[in-house]
């Protein structure tokens, strides 16, 4: 790895888009010693000596993507995903940094577990893994985890993901305590009592299928609470996977007040609706059929209505939602081959994330621009992390993602690098695909070797 990293690379003739530097032009990107050496003024066809060349003509050259919300499942649930397979899936999806959620077994609520994850990632990960620490001991919402110890161990924020911090006072204390550490609190916002055991979005589809619905207000209510508490404490709050119009309204008001808050949205909430539960790729069938109750659409927060989806896209486009994060949640086949009620929550996202949203951009660039899409996968999350990532600036780690914007491909989960196949997009044709991913100056994915 070290030897390979010393290689010099010239990525030639691609359309370089680096929102952090305001760059969008045809240029060459030069890499040496695992760092970005230079973005040339233009692509002049001249190749410096000693550089291995990558012909990027017709391709988009982007900083490697940064995912603030990934479930790697290791330690504890290695049959679903491991750090090795999860980081490979990341590389295949163009991500060179993933932030690992702490809902492992054991939970990442002590420095020793975090250390272990980081050591494993160093040994077997093909991209950068940044850990997230738990807010509460065992993620059970009773008392604070040793947040200072976790910060010293290198976590980039705190979350009990999957388990909302239901106790408003504990949430207040977590926020207040985190101020000193300078790290964000990331709370899965869902009022479980209001959600009342629902398994999908409340609305016409849930009613028709006879599935218990979670009202959008179950999310909105807790997002609103958390924003108020962020105001009270002055802490940094990062809202994961926003999915409702109400959350967006609350977020707008909080940002107008100048609160220190950021928000992410997932590819699936931007591109899929609750109508996908019918199992007909978003079409509403004449009658409920054997493909209905598609357990691969079961996710928390649930796929919402078209109205929510439209508002989320607008909010991302205008920058009110700061970033796209995957909430990549791999599950074994047995977790999904069952009734909808029994199925585990979560969608396998890393390898379809960029393409699923780019397909939207390709259809209607006015809705969401390519530049904004890439920004929300690179400069946006890097700013939240406060690290020198997500840009092709000279001296930064040479993390680069090459995309073929013309390529059409059909999602085949059996070909995923991820250990799991739980995506509702199987068989769906997408436009645009990550073809090469470079991490610290080394190719960690090349589609030509996997086509």
């Amino acid at each position, binding site marked *: 790895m070290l030897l390979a990293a010393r290689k010099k690379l010239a990525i030639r003739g691609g359309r370089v888009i680096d929102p952090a530097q305001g760059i969008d032009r045809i240029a060459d990107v030069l890499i040496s010693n695992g760092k970005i050496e230079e973005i040339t003024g233009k692509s002049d066809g001249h190749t410096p000596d000693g550089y291995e060349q990558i012909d990027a003509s017709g391709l988009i050259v982007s900083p490697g993507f940064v995912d603030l919300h990934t479930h790697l499942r290791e330690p504890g649930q290695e049959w679903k995903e491991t750090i090795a397979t999860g980081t490979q899936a990341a590389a295949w999806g163009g991500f060179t940094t993933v932030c690992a959620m702490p809902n492992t077994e054991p939970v990442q609520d002590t420095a020793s577990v975090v250390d272990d994850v980081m050591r494993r990632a160093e040994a077997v990960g093909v991209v950068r893994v940044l850990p997230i620490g738990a807010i509460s001991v065992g993620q059970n919402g009773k008392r604070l985890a040793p947040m200072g110890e976790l910060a010293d161990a290198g976590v980039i924020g705190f979350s009990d993901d999957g388990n909302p911090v239901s106790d408003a006072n504990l949430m207040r204390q977590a926020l207040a305590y985190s101020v000193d550490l300078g790290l964000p609190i990331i709370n899965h916002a869902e009022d479980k009592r209001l959600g009342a055991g629902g398994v999908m979005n*409340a*609305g*016409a*589809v*849930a*009613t*028709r*299928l*006879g*599935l*218990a*619905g979670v*009202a959008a207000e179950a999310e909105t209510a807790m997002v609103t609470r958390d924003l108020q508490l962020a105001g009270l404490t002055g802490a940094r709050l990062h809202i994961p996977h926003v999915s409702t119009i109400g959350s967006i309204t609350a977020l707008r008001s909080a940002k107008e007040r100048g609160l220190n808050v950021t928000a992410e949205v997932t590819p699936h909430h931007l591109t899929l609706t609750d109508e996908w539960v019918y199992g007909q790729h978003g079409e*509403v069938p*004449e*009658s*409920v*059929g*054997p493909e*209905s*109750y598609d357990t691969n659409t079961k996710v928390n927060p649930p796929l919402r209505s078209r109205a929510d989806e439209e508002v989320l896209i607008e909010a991302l486009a205008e920058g009110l939602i700061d970033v796209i994060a995957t909430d990549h949640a791999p599950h074994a086949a*047995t977790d999904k*081959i*069952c*009734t*909808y*009620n*029994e199925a585990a929550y979560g969608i396998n996202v890393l390898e379809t994330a960029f393409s699923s949203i780019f397909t939207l951009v390709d259809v209607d660039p006015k809705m969401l621009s390519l530049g904004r899409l890439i920004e929300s996968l690179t400069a946006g999350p890097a700013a939240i992390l406060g690290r020198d990532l997500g840009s092709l600036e000279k001296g930064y780690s040479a993390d680069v993602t090459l995309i073929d914007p013309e390529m059409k491909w059909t999602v085949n989960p059996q070909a995923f690098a991820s250990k799991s196949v739980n995506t509702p997009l199987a068989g769906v044709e997408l436009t645009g695909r990550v073809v090469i991913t470079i991490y610290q100056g080394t190719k960690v994915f090349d589609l030509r070797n996997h086509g």
Partner: protein
Amino acid sequence: MMADPRRHLLDLDDLDALEIEGLLNSAEGMLEIAGRDVRKTPALRGKTIITLFFENSTRTRVSFEQAGKILGADVINVAASTSSLSKGESLLNTVKTLEAMQIDALVVRHPHSGAPYFIANHTDASVVNAGDGTHAHPTQSLLDLFTVRKHLGDLAGKRIAIVGDILYSRVARSDIIAFQKMGAEVVVSCPNTLLPDEWQPGSILGQQTGFENLEIARNVDEAVEGADVVMALRIQQERQEAGHLPSLREYSDRWGINSRRMAMAHDGALLMHPGPMNEGVEIASDVAHGVQSVIEEQVRSGVAVRMAVLYALCARSRSARNGAGTEN
């Protein structure tokens, strides 16, 4: 060209009026057989039907068992609710195990909506939905149609009032679909806590709700006014515990079907209930056992309708059914 032979009965939404009428006509003949002194025909001799019930139900299970036995099939009852799931056996394994024993039909009752669809995807046997979660109960709806048709003839233009626990009722969902398919007008009434959020009292639902033209009454009196059929649904004690209702007493007072409300219905209107009844709560005892009540007849119709369904799905040989339409 004939349509492919029906393999499963999962709900009535994928049947047209003609196919439903065919089943009801067949049930007429079955009713005659079921009423004989010697109730046995060889129609399904050599066929094996399993009733696979993950929820307790006496009437529906016995009704299917009786239907299968009158037709000469071997009927095996599996109460799966406790036995397999408590041992951690998955639904998929249970189905695969039963199928390996060469069965012709699986009659499934399951607390999870969609479970019969899941099973249908993983078995070659015919699947009959005997009630799934809060989604559908198609044989109940067929017997409701059968009972009403016997008394009122053509259903077109008839007004059907369904009163009760709409949010959690699989009978309500299937009945709305079934009666509308036969041309009837359906109106529902219940406390707002038992109505889906997107259904507004005093409105007629649009196409995007999946229940187009369903009328949501402002109150129960508006629903039963001029109705040809009044259907009361069972109110579960747990609705009160979950906070949907202040008390069963208040429900009885404001939504219960009693003689005053039956008097508001059309002359000769029928009173129905899918059972089991909470007399004194959703239905008053005097009307439940009064001249307008066809509740016991619903139970009789149930056997005949289920005979018709099992016959339609099982009469063909397994190889012919699984050979996908070669008979046509």
